[in-house]
């Protein structure tokens, strides 16, 4: 399978008045065409920073971002137009991602014009096609964002991301600002479009249970590090890292069937520390129920426990 995105040893440190914020310290992952990688973490874990680096809104402090075998780890203003066409993003807040003073038609027209996707005469048909793809009626072309609901706005944002016919879309918590009923609709649309166009998704979220439905692989981030990465099935059946087990144990369940597949109850202790004061050794050790002496002294490295199942923990 064609490898779209390859991120290696990605680092991002911000210099602030309170000290150096180590937002991302170690992120390595890849995404192939037609695949969804779920990047999951609490707020402050650095998952959005990773997404913004992939898009070029931040410049990496260190490490590589390769897209179709080309190094793209630079600021978006220095990226060529063809690359911008290939990479698109859907932001978290649909209210702010659409200009309130521009109609839906105008919003969708912009990328088509910039990238000269089609001749002037076909623009309108293209716009209507895009609306149709995300399941919005064609009258929406003349509507303004203020008259749309949150879910509809997000659909327009998705249509905009699709307009340039990209091969990879970064989804930065696209459903977390929406009602649960609308979430399902958005997710289903995303899955359908992915199948139709063989798209790669980098899905950023804090909602683990959502990942079971959409992600092919899941990566868990904690304090700027990916601590576990596995195929979705392995991930939910045999979670390895104590942090992952803690997260999975905290998902509320309704049926006994679901209860059975949950790992043994691990109560969560404490909160994610500030990325300014990273704990020494394994960054999770202050909260870890299974910590050993070595954990507070030296940081563990990523090991491949099983083919395709990576974990950063001394237990394995």
């Amino acid at each position, binding site marked *: 399978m064609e490898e779209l995105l390859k991120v290696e040893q990605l680092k991002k440190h911000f210099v602030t008045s309170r000290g150096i914020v180590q937002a991302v310290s170690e992120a390595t992952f890849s995404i192939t065409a037609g695949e969804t990688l779920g990047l999951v973490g609490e707020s402050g874990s650095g998952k959005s920073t990773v997404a913004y680096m992939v898009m070029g809104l931040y410049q990496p402090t260190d490490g590589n971002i390769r897209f179709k075998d080309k190094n793209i780890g630079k600021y978006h203003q220095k990226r060529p137009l063809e690359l911008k066409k290939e990479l698109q993003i859907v932001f978290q807040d649909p209210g702010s*991602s659409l*200009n309130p*003073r521009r109609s839906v038609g105008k919003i969708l027209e912009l990328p088509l014009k910039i990238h000269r996707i089609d001749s002037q005469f076909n623009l309108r048909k293209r716009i209507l096609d895009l609306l149709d793809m995300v399941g919005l009626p064609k009258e929406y072309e003349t509507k303004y964002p203020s008259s749309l609901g949150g879910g509809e706005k997000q659909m327009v944002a998705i249509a905009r991301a699709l307009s340039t016919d990209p091969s990879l879309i970064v989804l930065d918590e696209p459903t977390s600002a929406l009602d649960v009923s609308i979430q399902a609709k958005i997710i289903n649309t995303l899955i359908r479009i992915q199948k139709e166009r063989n798209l790669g998704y980098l899905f950023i979220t804090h909602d683990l249970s959502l990942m079971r439905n959409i992600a092919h692989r899941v990566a868990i981030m904690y304090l700027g590090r990916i601590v576990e990465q596995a195929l979705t099935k392995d991930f939910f059946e045999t979670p390895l890292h104590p942090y992952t087990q803690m997260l999975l144990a905290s998902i509320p369940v309704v049926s006994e069937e679901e209860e059975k597949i949950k790992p043994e109850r691990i109560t969560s202790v404490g909160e994610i520390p500030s990325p300014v004061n990273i704990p020494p050794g394994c960054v999770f050790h202050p909260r870890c129920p299974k910590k050993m002496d070595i954990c507070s002294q030296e940081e563990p490295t990523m090991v491949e426990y099983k083919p395709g199942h990576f974990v950063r923990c001394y237990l394995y």
Partner: protein
Amino acid sequence: MNGVLEETLTTIDDKRDDHRTRAGRWWYQFSKNPLSVVGLAIVIFVVCSAIFAPWIAPYPEHAGPYVNYGEANQSPSTNHLFGTDVFGRDILSRVFFAFRSALLMGIVVLAIVVPIGVTLGLIAGYFKNTWIDTVVMRITDIFLSVPPLILALAITSVLEPNLTNAMIAVSVMWWPWYTRLVYGMATSIRNEYFVQSAELLGASKFHILFREILPNCLSTILTKMTLDMGWVILIGASLSFVGLGEQPPKPSLGTMVSDGARYLPEYWWMAVFPGLAIMLIVLGFNLLGDGIGDLFSMEES
């Protein structure tokens, strides 16, 4: 019973139809505040009397170098509603013509000031924390730190005193306000996702500044412009009061007040009526500006 209910429902529907069009809805909101309507009426009156001055002024020829000592210093009467000045010219006619230069001043100044101030503010705001921001905003600060009327007085007294130079002087002191206003808005709007999205799509700087950010500032700019019309006219009148605006024999409200003030209190009408005219214009634009501001803030919420 059913019939009555149906009738009520239809009337409600009809009322809704009234407000369905955008303009209708705007007027409904705007007219809720009677003061805004008064402001609008004053502005319309002033604008119309300026445009149609040659036809509605009772003595249009009095707006120029006309002298008739036989009718000088007459108090208000049916012939001369606002009385006459020391040259025997009808003050009402001269006020109508003075509206022309007053409005011209406001329009020309804003037409110069708004594009310059807004563009600089957009650029400085979008490039916040770069050298462009520093250069533009520090220059703006320098202009803002000079007392406005003093600056205008200095400029007009160096240049030849006439209406054109008064306009230039007021423009020089007025643009920084728009730069400041738009700068503040642009710095917050540029962080919105829709701006980032346009950047990531590869939109040009021109598009981002003028198509994405500017439309979101327009309502505030428009409100400030309406309010400023009044203030610019007031400053213009102050300049002509000290003899640095429109030169006689052309009528200007400030000059009329300063000339008339010499004959107070016996010939009170010479200063009071042009003074009231200035007040009327400033009041009208202020009330209208407030009304427009309310309208936009309601539209946005």
